[in-house]
């Protein structure tokens, strides 16, 4: 985690802060979702508690914490309590691996009569070389919290809900994994930072040895992989159990699902996991297809740091990272709004339609996308 006490301390605090940021975004998103859906449906939404109803979140938190701590008599106590905790882990671990901004470079400095540094702090919880594989690996563990919840409740509805949910999750994991292959073929790296670096220049196509550059467009993955982006987004909707794929919690026509027996803060922790997954999904979409924390013609690490030409290198680096972080957050928030928007625009699928879509539509399309991408890249990059 670091070589001396300062670096270890900063890295640990950074890690905790990023996790807290993820957890804190949840009540905010719940508020956005409630106000947003009220806006879409032409009603008011929560507007009584505090300005714009913002402190509704606090009231909700207090309500969740003071609810009766209930658990069914026949359940398995330890697993029943473990399931909501397990629901937090995949999202938190995956979010930690996504670079949120440019790394901060700290020059050597004097403090407490000692020279510290130089340091490089990545703007993410940890930097892992096999980034994409790591994120896929931890998010493949998400099925366990569903199955634990369903099994530990010892309730038929929970059990069926858990089976339904985990079958859905794993089916769409295939389409998700396969739609990423196109972007891997394009960038030839598992590393998120490297991928963002490749996207921070102008759009340039290699056609049979010659390079055509479009100066006004960024080199984003979406221009090469539009189909892959759509498939990945759809698969992410299914992975996060959001509408139109929210059969695990279709409370109107199926009994709630794997969390039938849960209430209070334990129920809320499943939601923290779900919103965390939304955050990870948006972060991945932005990193793969929309240039991560860069916005080529205006905001790249190069252009932003040139604004602070007068100040010290450390301060330049800090300000650059913060501004680029705002760029990243804006992009992510746009995607999060898309998640909420779609919820009120599309009806829910039936279960057989859902499985058909995953296996018979998205998987072949993702396969076709991979093959076409490979052939095109092969033709373009070979020196004939």
């Amino acid at each position, binding site marked *: 985690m670091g070589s001396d006490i300062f670096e270890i301390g900063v890295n640990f605090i950074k890690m905790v802060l990023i*996790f807290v940021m993820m957890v804190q975004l949840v009540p905010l998103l719940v508020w956005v979702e409630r106000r947003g859906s009220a806006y879409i449906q032409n009603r008011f939404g929560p507007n009584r508690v505090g300005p714009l109803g913002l402190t509704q979140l606090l009231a909700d938190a207090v309500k969740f914490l003071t609810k*009766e701590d209930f658990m069914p008599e*026949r359940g398995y106590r330890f697993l029943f309590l473990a399931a909501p*905790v397990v629901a937090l*882990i995949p999202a938190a671990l995956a979010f930690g691996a996504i670079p949120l901004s440019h790394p901060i470079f700290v020059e050597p400095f004097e403090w407490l009569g000692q020279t510290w540094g130089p340091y490089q702090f990545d703007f993410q919880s940890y930097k*892992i070389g096999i980034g994409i594989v790591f994120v896929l690996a931890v998010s493949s563990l998400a099925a366990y919290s569903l199955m634990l919840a369903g099994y530990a409740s010892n309730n038929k509805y929970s*059990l069926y809900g858990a089976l339904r949910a985990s079958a859905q999750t794993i089916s769409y994991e*295939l389409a998700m994994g396969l739609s990423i292959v196109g972007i891997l073929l394009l960038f030839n790296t598992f590393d998120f930072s490297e991928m963002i670096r490749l996207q921070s220049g102008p759009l340039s196509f290699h056609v049979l040895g010659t390079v055509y550059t479009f100066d006004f467009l960024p080199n984003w993955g979406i221009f090469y992989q539009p189909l892959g982006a759509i498939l990945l987004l759809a698969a992410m909707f299914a992975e996060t159990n959001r509408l139109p794929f929210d059969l695990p919690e279709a409370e109107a026509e199926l009994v709630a699902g794997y969390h039938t027996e849960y209430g209070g803060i334990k129920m809320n922790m499943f939601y923290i996991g779900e919103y965390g997954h939304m955050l990870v999904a948006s972060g991945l979409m932005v990193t793969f297809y929309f240039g991560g924390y860069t916005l080529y013609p205006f905001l790249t690490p190069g252009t932003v740091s040139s604004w602070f030409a007068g100040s010290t290198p450390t301060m330049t680096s800090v300000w650059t990272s913060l501004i680029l972080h705002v760029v990243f957050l804006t992009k992510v928030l746009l995607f999060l709004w898309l998640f909420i928007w779609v919820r009120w625009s599309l009806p829910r699928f039936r279960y057989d339609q859902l499985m058909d879509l995953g296996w018979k539509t998205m*998987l072949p399309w993702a396969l076709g996308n991979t093959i076409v991408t*490979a052939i095109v890249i092969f033709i373009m990059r070979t020196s004939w």
Partner: protein
Amino acid sequence: MSQLLPVLVLSGFVVVFGAAIIVVASLLGTKAAKSKTKLETYECGLESDMSGSTKVPIKFYLTAILFILFDIEIIFMYPWALSFNDFIRQGYGLYIMGAMGVFLLIFILGLLWEVKSKALEWE
């Protein structure tokens, strides 16, 4: 190891955080009287009956096993995608395309067979 340590620390932190929330909630939560009916499993008011055999469609199991097999085939494509450019640059582009072409042909055959055999039908 040094790369892995932050991951372990973070997962430990998340577990502690989650456990703390659950403990706090159980301390703060209202203590209501517990009755026999309340503690019963929720089955829309019917008497719950877990002893009988629950029929679960075998489809779920079949979906899971097909998932494993296709998942591995997809994972085999990741190293291929990673080294694709290197092969092309060395002039072995046609070779790597052919190698993966045969594999993809088998993959597509499997997928077609699954569709044909109605293993993926949910009614």
